[in-house]
């Protein structure tokens, strides 16, 4: 598909030949995740996370479809129907805990996948479309996860829905109307619950469609690699199958072990206790917090505390959406021709500052809105915007990259000689 030396699919028996002429589905699979897709030979374990994200989506869809058979999207009985799943449905507790923790693990692997792309420059030409589609998937995931969190109709479900749809109320003039339109009422109620359930069921399939486009766009230039340099010839690549299928199989095992530890031994660790209290419009929880994977953005939202030309709340909403939207422009903000952070001494430092910065934002997003957390999140939010909009464009001009290896093969063999440890090269 991507390189001229890619293996061609040859049907081995008459039926497959017959099939290939009429509907070349086996050929498609062969060229996508089979021996027909040549991949750089030097990918490290961070390249496992794309496949793991796909696995996480499959787990979410399978458990979600089963849960939907027993769940009732009605504000009168939604909470009770979740308890019915936990107590009376055979293995219902397993389906629900897998689904709830599976969402968290989906975000963990996607965040690692995104930061891998940031470090190794996977967003740069010719892979801009891969990056943009990935961001669309990320936005869809956040919408799906938020609406899923509303479905159990606990206290955090209800008040989370109130706060998040309330963000749209910050829009001047039409805000209130937009919020009422989104909720189908003046406050979250049965109308909101029903539409959230409908969309929560729909969006994962939209995500699946976007993943197909994401992979399609990826397979034209082929995968990036830790050196960031282009594939020069057949010696730089190995077929996806069996090499990377075997490696991904191992990665999937480690992923499932980690997920199982949470599901079976700490299933509520990542959740919030208040969501085991049924939604009560008359009682506001002491601290309303979204799920952990949205906390960095929540911290940015709350970092704007002072009106300046615009109301503080509107600044917060603009900044929160802006913090994700700016990523769509990243391929054109960072003009350094070198992809991999490995050969960019300045970029490398700023990258790790960004990682710490996002973790700090996440911590502050979960903390109560009081000092010193507000001041810390203000500093961290300043760095977040400065990193992408000011620092990256500047260092891509001033930085002197380290010399690049001539080819992937040279990088691999050179490392072998210098360290005499093939395992370390992994």
């Amino acid at each position, binding site marked *: 598909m991507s390189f001229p030396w890619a293996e061609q699919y040859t049907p081995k028996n008459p039926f497959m030949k017959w099939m290939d002429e009429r509907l070349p589905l086996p050929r498609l699979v062969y060229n996508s995740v089979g021996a027909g897709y040549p991949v750089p*030979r*030097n*990918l490290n374990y961070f390249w496992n996370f794309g496949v793991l994200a796909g696995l996480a989506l499959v787990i979410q869809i399978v458990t979600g479809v089963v849960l939907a058979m027993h769940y009732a999207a009605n504000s009168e009985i939604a909470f*009770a129907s979740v*308890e019915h799943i*936990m*107590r009376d449905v055979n293995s219902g*507790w*397993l389906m629900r*805990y897998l689904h709830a923790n599976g969402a968290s693990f989906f975000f963990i692997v996607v965040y690692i996948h995104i930061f891998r792309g940031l470090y190794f420059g996977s967003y740069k030409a010719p892979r801009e479309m891969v990056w943009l589609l990935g961001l669309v998937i990320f936005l869809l995931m956040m919408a799906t996860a938020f609406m899923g969190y509303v479905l159990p109709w606990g206290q955090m479900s209800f008040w989370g829905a109130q706060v998040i749809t309330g963000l749209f109320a910050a829009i001047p003039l039409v805000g209130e109307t937009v919020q009422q339109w989104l909720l189908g009422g003046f406050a979250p109620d049965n109308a909101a619950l029903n539409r959230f359930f409908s969309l929560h069921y729909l969006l994962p399939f939209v995500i699946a469609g976007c993943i197909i486009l994401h992979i399609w766009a990826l397979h034209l230039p082929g995968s990036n690699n830790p050196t960031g340099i282009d594939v020069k010839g057949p010696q730089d690549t*190995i077929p996806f199958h069996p*090499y990377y299928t*075997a*490696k991904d*199989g*191992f990665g999937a*095992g*480690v992923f499932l*072990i980690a997920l*199982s*530890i949470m599901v*079976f*031994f700490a299933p509520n660790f990542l959740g*919030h*206790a208040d969501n*085991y*209290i049924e939604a009560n419009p008359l009682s506001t929880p002491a601290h309303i917090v979204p799920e952990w994977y949205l906390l960095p953005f929540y911290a940015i939202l709350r*970092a*704007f*505390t*002072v009106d*300046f030309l615009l109301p*503080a709340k509107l*600044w917060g909403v603009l*900044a929160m959406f*802006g913090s994700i939207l*700016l990523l769509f*422009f990243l391929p*054109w*903000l960072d*003009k350094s021709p070198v992809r991999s952070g490995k050969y960019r001494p300045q970029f490398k430092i700023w990258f790790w500052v960004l990682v710490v910065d996002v973790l700090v934002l996440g911590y502050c997003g979960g903390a109560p809105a009081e*000092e*010193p957390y*507000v*001041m810390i999140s*203000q*500093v961290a*939010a*300043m760095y977040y*915007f*400065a990193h*992408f*909009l*000011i620092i990256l*464009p500047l260092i891509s001009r001033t930085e002197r990259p380290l010399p690049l290896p001539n080819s992937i*093969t040279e990088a*691999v063999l050179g490392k072998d000689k210098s360290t005499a440890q*093939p395992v370390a*090269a*992994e």
Partner: protein
Amino acid sequence: MVRVIGFLVGLGFVGVLAYSLVIGAIAFATEEEAGPTAYDYHKYARDVSFPSDGPLGRFDRQQLQRGFQVYREVCAACHSLEYVAFRNLTDLGFSEAEIDAIADQWPIQVPTIDENTGEETTRNAVAADHFPLVYANETAGQAANNNAYPPDLSLITKARSEGAPYLYSLLVGYQDPPEDLPEDLLPGTGLYYNPYFPNLNLAMPPPLFPDQVTYADGTEATVEQMAWDVTAFLIWTAEPKMEVRKATGWAVLIFLIFATLLAFLSYKNIWRDQKH
């Protein structure tokens, strides 16, 4: 062009944040020291363990039965157990005949309709019923309890961030207010001081007194013992599938570790002659 616009947008956000930071910092620095708040007197839950703790933890049936006895004789006067059915008590080691008797003798009846007239009436509970609600609705519960609705206890150990230790601490934590407690934090009429409760003053009167129940197995019914037992019972009501969950977890983990080891070996085997 993208970079020029991006640069300006970046400066804008950073500038507004810096402005917010300066204003916030000035306010923080000049803020007057506030007097002690409820937060300063609040205590975190006591360190208490239960047989069900940990990856190998299991319920102690004897303890659950004692805890159920405390619930039935003390808590059930005000607190419902909406999501638990009488039939679920088989998990505690009760026989079907015992459960039928418990349901039949439950002091609150179950709403139903008269088969002949269709009028609303009540009947004795049966094993298939959930524990009947104590109050017809939340307003009735508030009216009977100084405007504080006694929460349903089915999920209480999962619905509090400190979990079961919080519940235990609350039950044994009633005490006289400390002498230095500011006046505005003193318990008002119908409230009771309890440092484990977030705002220190709880509408629930101290529920447990020594020897309030008589345990069939001869265990001495101290307040600590009853609190510990009823908390264990409420861990079960919140998570009745805990034992099967942990047992399944071990089987799944052993399988996955074995499968992952095989996957690792086949990965290394397939890659053995590839430089990478």
